[in-house]
């Protein structure tokens, strides 16, 4: 393979990698928005009508649930990115 081809392939890989990253980001940020600003504020009144284990659901999302899901989101992102990075050969490990 010539050098020019290698660079071209590298560039395609890079842009594919970036697109995969953006897609993952968009999905996770949508959840981030829904569980906090969504469930905790916008839809809180509707969700508060549901009560689980002593918590009104909307109140629970606002004070505890959103935080719990935030932690999960970050680790899902870290794990998915490792897979994506290996697939496109841009991993740092």
């Amino acid at each position, binding site marked *: 393979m010539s050098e020019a081809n290698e660079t071209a392939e590298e560039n395609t890989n890079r842009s594919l990698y970036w697109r995969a990253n953006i897609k993952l980001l968009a999905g996770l940020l949508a959840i981030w928005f829904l569980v906090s600003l969504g469930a905790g504020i916008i839809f809180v009144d509707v969700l508060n009508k549901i009560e689980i284990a*002593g918590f009104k659901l909307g109140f629970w999302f606002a*004070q*505890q649930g*959103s*935080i719990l899901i*935030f932690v999960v989101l*970050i680790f899902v992102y870290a794990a998915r990115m490792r897979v994506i990075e290996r697939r496109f050969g*841009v991993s740092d490990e």
Partner: protein
Amino acid sequence: MDTQALTYIFVGLSFALYIGIALWSRASSTSEFYVAGGHVHPIANGMATAADWMSAASFISMAGIIAFSGYDASVYLMGWTGGYVLLALLLAPYLRKFGQFTVPDFIGERYYSKTARVVAVICLIIISFTYIAGQMRGVGVVFSRFLELPVDMGVAVGMGIVFFYAVLGGMKGITYTQVAQYCVLIFAYLVPAVFISIMVTGNPIPQLGLGSDVVGGDISVLSKLDGVLVDLGFSAFTEGSKSKIDMFAITLALMVGTAGLPHVIVRFFTVPKVSDARRSAGYALIFIALLYMTAPAVGAFARLNFVESVSEKSYANAPEWVKTWEGIGLIAWVDKNEDGVIQYGPGAAFEGRVDFSGEVGVAGERLLTNHPTPLTNEIFVDRDIMVLANPEIAGLPGWVIALVAAGGVAAALSTAAGLLLVISSSISHDLLKKTFRPKITEKTELMAARGAAATAIVIAGYLGINPPGFVAQVVALAFGLAACSLFPAILMGIFFKGVNREGAIAGMAAGLIFTLGYIVYFKSPWFGATNSSEHWLFGISPEGIGAIGMVLNFAVAFGVAQFTQATPPSVRSMVDNIRTPGTVLSQ
């Protein structure tokens, strides 16, 4: 042994530990001083970030705010944690790849402009100083309550300790000290929480105890609290009084502001790899969540305990802690109907700040010179005492109280140190080395960094001893400014190559001027503006206006970039480079 002696021992031991760590981890190069050489393990960095992040406000005030405002306090819980998702997903990995020392470094190089760098430095310094004054104050309050030192002395002692390990150890010293401080503060927070949860609900896990039934009843803590408060004339604990749009704006501003705070961002420059930066943000949030998910439980239990121990109880038989805190002016009682019984309800009991006349009333209470309000409420309680008084309210042994004191000091010192470091590095690195005196050697730069840290401590201490009148008000400023200036500039720098120097500078300036102007207009005494919802823009309070400032920043930056010279190719390839983790920076 009495509580006071125990407190001296606990706080003294923790100080000895921090100093020991500082001596062991002295910084010998600028890289070690600024970013701990970039060799910190992601879990250790997570702990250090958590300690750095959780300030005296988180440790002391948060549960108190939740206790007294219930659902409304959710803005802090979601806002101060949700920012970590933004950090981990949108900023930290790319800034780590960029691989320099400071936030202004990134802004200056990405927007190929010294002006942009200086604007970033100015934002950073305003943000950090408003924040640090509160920390020093927090140290002073803890010292004065638990060690019976004057507040000023407390601030001075705190300054001395931070001086020692921040100036000597730089980021390296601070990081390892913060790991120790995290352990101290989380232990100090959880121990009383567990005891109180068992006492109130029988459930040893406070996070779950919040949803459990109260001991000896078949009603859950939250339902009981709702009922008790509504009976007294308050709004229900699980329902708020803020408007939805304001809740939304404040939460968003705090989330974005958190992600844009320089002392938090810079922590992710210290880990070895890009993938470590992502994971480290996750660990940091786990460590933070441990406290933040406990705080709602502590707040609810404390409110319930408080109502049950004071409402309709005779003052003469009030528990000992009521009198202890009354002694230092954080609780006050005015017997309006002269029945010797404490009536508790919504609204202020009297006008203005507590001002004791020095005389003692019929029931033995300290009399006030304040003019009583026509409301039935007779008692004033400073919400900051909830965490500090909790062990006493729950009747816990003296060593728990001593532990809480050490935890409060750890929380305040760790945050103060982190802030001092970003201030000093922005002065020695961004202003001196990169802007005004590029020829200085590394040795001189390191000396300048230490000098700047020392100067910053003295200024912070001064602000702690002589807080500007509206110091509590200006914390909103720190988040608002970070949200409207630094966060958008960094985000666009990574994700939008088209945003150029002119766009970024105009955007930061627009966001900054708008947000600063709005906050000063409503919060300062100079304009005589009424700070209430009917006067606010779209009903958004000054606390939440950073969210609008951020939108403005984006809009102006994209607009200006359309009509000015495109980003140069060298910068575009730099952006490509920071977007890919595994390639070497080709410069």
